[in-house]
């Protein structure tokens, strides 16, 4: 029950999140904006278009969008977004979740190479580089979060934060939070690491891999990328501000939890969008500096977890 609810929320609301962020950017840039529902309209339209099978592509190219969506679905079902009582508890391990989301990226990168176009390869190569550098930061930050709890299980972390709210205001979680935010920005391909609305192929990372997709496949990719954003923001929200999440199956609690989750993610998304308006894209080879910085913060968080208090 909880699983289905979470799936519905994530799938249903993630395009709206993207729409909201675009809307906020539009307003801050002095434009009217297309409205929050636009991504859903685009998806519906893409679904009605006739698919294209480019010459010389293999199964990898066709399966990749499905894998991408599947990984997001699994995470959306397993992670404690609305309720901590998940049937998929043995999957809701932070390492497993991270690895799953990486799997999706890898599938897309392989698809990009598979097209055999120069841009596809370029995007894949950049994406692979970013993954390789993001992984350490992510895992070290997870380490820092797991130390006070003694477990990497998402449910366990969330519940322990609920029981002891003071944890949130310790330097450990502050440093870890900063590290995680940088990493999430890199993983979801937002500014300043990657510009989701770029038209210039040479500056693309994520877009370059999907240049060849069209129709329903493209719809899958678009949906998946907004789901990734939602999932990451949801994780961020519930790891550091878990309040409102339902610990039991009571309908009232669950309803409140849904509301709380939506509000939290919306707020985080809004902050991200506002931030993006004021940021310029980093040169690709300045990105490692950014990630190294967040890696050090993660390491310091681990350090703080044992040498403070």
């Amino acid at each position: 029950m909880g699983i289905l609810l979470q799936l519905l929320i994530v799938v249903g609301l993630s395009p709206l999140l993207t729409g909201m962020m675009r809307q906020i950017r539009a307003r801050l840039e002095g434009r009217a904006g297309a409205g929050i529902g636009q991504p859903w309209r685009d998806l519906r339209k893409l679904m009605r278009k006739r698919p294209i099978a480019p010459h010389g592509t293999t199964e990898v190219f066709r399966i990749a969008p499905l894998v991408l969506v599947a990984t997001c679905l699994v995470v959306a079902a397993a992670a404690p977004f609305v309720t901590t009582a998940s049937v998929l508890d043995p999957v809701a391990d932070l390492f497993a979740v991270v690895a799953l989301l990486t799997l999706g990226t890898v599938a897309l990168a392989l698809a990009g190479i598979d097209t055999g176009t120069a841009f596809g390869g370029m995007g894949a190569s950049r994406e692979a580089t970013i993954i390789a550098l993001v992984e350490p930061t992510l895992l070290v930050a997870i380490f820092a979060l797991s130390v006070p709890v003694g477990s990497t299980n998402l449910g366990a972390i969330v519940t322990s934060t609920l029981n002891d709210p003071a944890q949130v205001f310790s330097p450990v979680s502050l440093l870890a939070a900063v590290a995680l935010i940088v990493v999430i920005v890199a993983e979801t391909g937002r500014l300043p690491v990657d510009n989701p609305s770029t038209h210039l192929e040479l500056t693309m990372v994520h877009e370059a891999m999907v240049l060849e997709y069209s129709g329903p496949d493209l719809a899958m990719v678009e949906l998946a990328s907004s789901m990734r954003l939602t999932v990451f923001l949801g994780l961020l929200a519930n790891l550091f501000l878990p309040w409102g999440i339902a610990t039991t199956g009571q309908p009232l609690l669950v309803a409140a939890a849904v509301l709380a989750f939506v509000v939290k993610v919306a707020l985080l998304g809004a902050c991200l969008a506002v931030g993006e308006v004021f940021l310029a894209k980093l040169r690709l080879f300045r990105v490692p500096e950014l990630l190294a910085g967040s890696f050090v913060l993660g390491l310091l968080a681990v350090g703080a977890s044992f040498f403070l208090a």
Partner: protein
Amino acid sequence: MQIRHVDAGSCNGCEVEIGAAFGPVYDAERYGARLVASPRHADALLVTGVVTRNMAAPLRRTFEAVPDPKLVVAVGDCARNCGVFAGAYGVAGAVRDVVPVDLEVPGCPPRPEAIVDAVRKLTGR
């Protein structure tokens, strides 16, 4: 509605106007239209300028690359009927001589309102 803009040999007058149409002032995006990076993502081609001999084949290929159903908008007089370049050497013809055109925007260059109006015809908003 995603739009891919193709410059088939324009004097860039129309490009400036298109830029204006999608800029903060006229903001065609509020009607749900977005310029995209690849014809695979596009539903409509926004073709400007006369089709030069060099651009005829690329234009045709771009048209083939767009997934069905698809529309073509010829922006500017050159795109409609070669405009001032009519009969010039190196001109393969107007856009409709190369790919089927669904909508034409007159003007040299057309005013942004006209372009936004065309976009609204496409998106129906």
